[in-house]
């Protein structure tokens, strides 16, 4: 009788803890995805600004290269964080895949721009690529 009453009293507490854990898990996943997207937007934004200043003759090549290298590090870190997430629901999984895809496209754009800068190639196409990557990241972030 005593055991039963203890169990009855414990169920609501356990349920509250479980619900809180699930909710915090959901919140943590969506927060992590939003943070990763924002980090991606920031990295792509600084890359775009550096390329724009370089095209205007204001930023020297080593500075532009360093901004792009730092952006690559930022995007790689954000991608790793997203890949390591374990979504609890199908919608979270979809959101994670969207953010991961957007980060990968952004990484491709920044890496490509950096390679073109190093090779002295044409830089005119890269701002548009970066703008598109930024738009995708903003959309993925919701």
């Amino acid at each position, binding site marked *: 009788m005593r055991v039963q009453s203890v169990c009855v009293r414990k169920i609501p507490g356990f349920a509250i803890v479980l619900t809180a854990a699930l909710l915090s898990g959901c919140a943590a996943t969506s927060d992590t995805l939003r943070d990763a997207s924002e980090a991606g937007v920031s990295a792509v*934004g*600084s890359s775009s*600004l550096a390329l724009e200043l370089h095209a205007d003759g204001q*930023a020297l090549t080593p*500075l532009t290269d360093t901004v792009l290298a*730092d952006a690559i590090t*930022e995007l790689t870190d954000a991608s790793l964080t997203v890949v390591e997430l374990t979504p609890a629901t199908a919608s979270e999984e979809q959101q994670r895949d969207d953010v991961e895809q957007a980060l990968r496209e952004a990484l491709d754009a920044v890496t490509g721009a950096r390679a073109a800068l190093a090779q002295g190639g044409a830089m005119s196409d890269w701002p548009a690529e970066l703008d598109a990557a930024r738009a995708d990241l903003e959309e993925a972030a919701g």
Partner: protein
Amino acid sequence: MKKLFAVALGVLTAIGGFVDIGDLVTNAVVGSRFGMSLAWVVVVGVVGICLFANMSGRVAAVSGRATFEIIRERLGPRAGLANLGASFFINLMTMAAEIGGIALVLQLVTGIGPMLWMPLAAFAVWIVVWRAKFSQLENAAGLLGLSLIVFAVAVVMLGPDWGELAHQAFVPTVPASEQPSTYWFYAVALFGAAMTPYEVFFFSSGAIEEGWTRKDLGQERVNVFVGFPLGGLLSLAIAASAAIVLLPQAIAVTSLSQVVLPVVQAGGTIAFCFLIVGMLAAFFGAALETTLSSGYTIAQYFGWSWGKFRRPAKAARFHLVMIVGLVIALGILLTGVDPIAVTEYSVVFSAVALPLTYIPILIISNDPDYMGTEVNGRAVNALGLVYLVVIVVAAVAAIPLMIISGAGA
């Protein structure tokens, strides 16, 4: 005329030497994420560092002894050791951050990765500490550091909406995209950056190195109460440049290369050159100060012979401590840790250690045995007590805020 020149030089070096990598990075991060809404923290921090640096300098000038010597004597070895442990740990982290900062600046100019530059930067710091006179290293770094005024010039050239900047500063709010815990985490970090403990120990020991007496108290006050606030304005200019250019584009500063972009946008390659000179001088100067401070704190606590005014052979343990400190700082950096992350953690832990640094200074500056008639006045003590409350609150809140906000993520 000679005295006027000395006062001007002191003020200029105080301005140029005010900003180090902690101030620069933290202000840029805050500007890019919160606009000018944390400008009030810079003001609170500058008033605090003026208050306590003045006390520390006065103790040295009146008693003829540096702060750490008196702390151990007046408060006993245990309290002295707690003070020493906290200060030395923070100082070591700051030293690593400054050397890493020098390497990052050189990367911006050459495109060569920072790992190559770190050993060279540490070696350069050691050779200057070993060979140069105290006044030479202090004046050269401080004067060249004035190049950071380019941040203020950039703010004007960018033609911002001054009304909007003033509104952000005078009606501070937490942006919708940020959590309140993150806002307060950066408030504590900014406060820690402005009141870094090594600044007062260096200031106090520097007074002994330069042979200050009661007669120099006037110059000491001018240096502190004119130089430091102007240095604080420089900090606000760094935040403003980021708020004008980076915040509207949702670029949150995570690297030194991003801090540079607003200045380059405003003034192109010429402004960039000034900025590089300013950052190199500021970080190199701060690396010298933290290296010397590591020697000062340990040597003064243990009662060893210390000071740049002595030949290295006459202060061997003082110089050995500095070499060991540099090796440890370099070792930290060569693990591959991001110098910007070291900087961010150093300013937060600096806030944690603030009470251990500033409570003893307040006690000693009220002791007539050391200070004679130059003890603190009532107004200074009242302000000092208000600041002790602020310092304790910041120290207690720092770690919980770091955990809750995910270190400001």
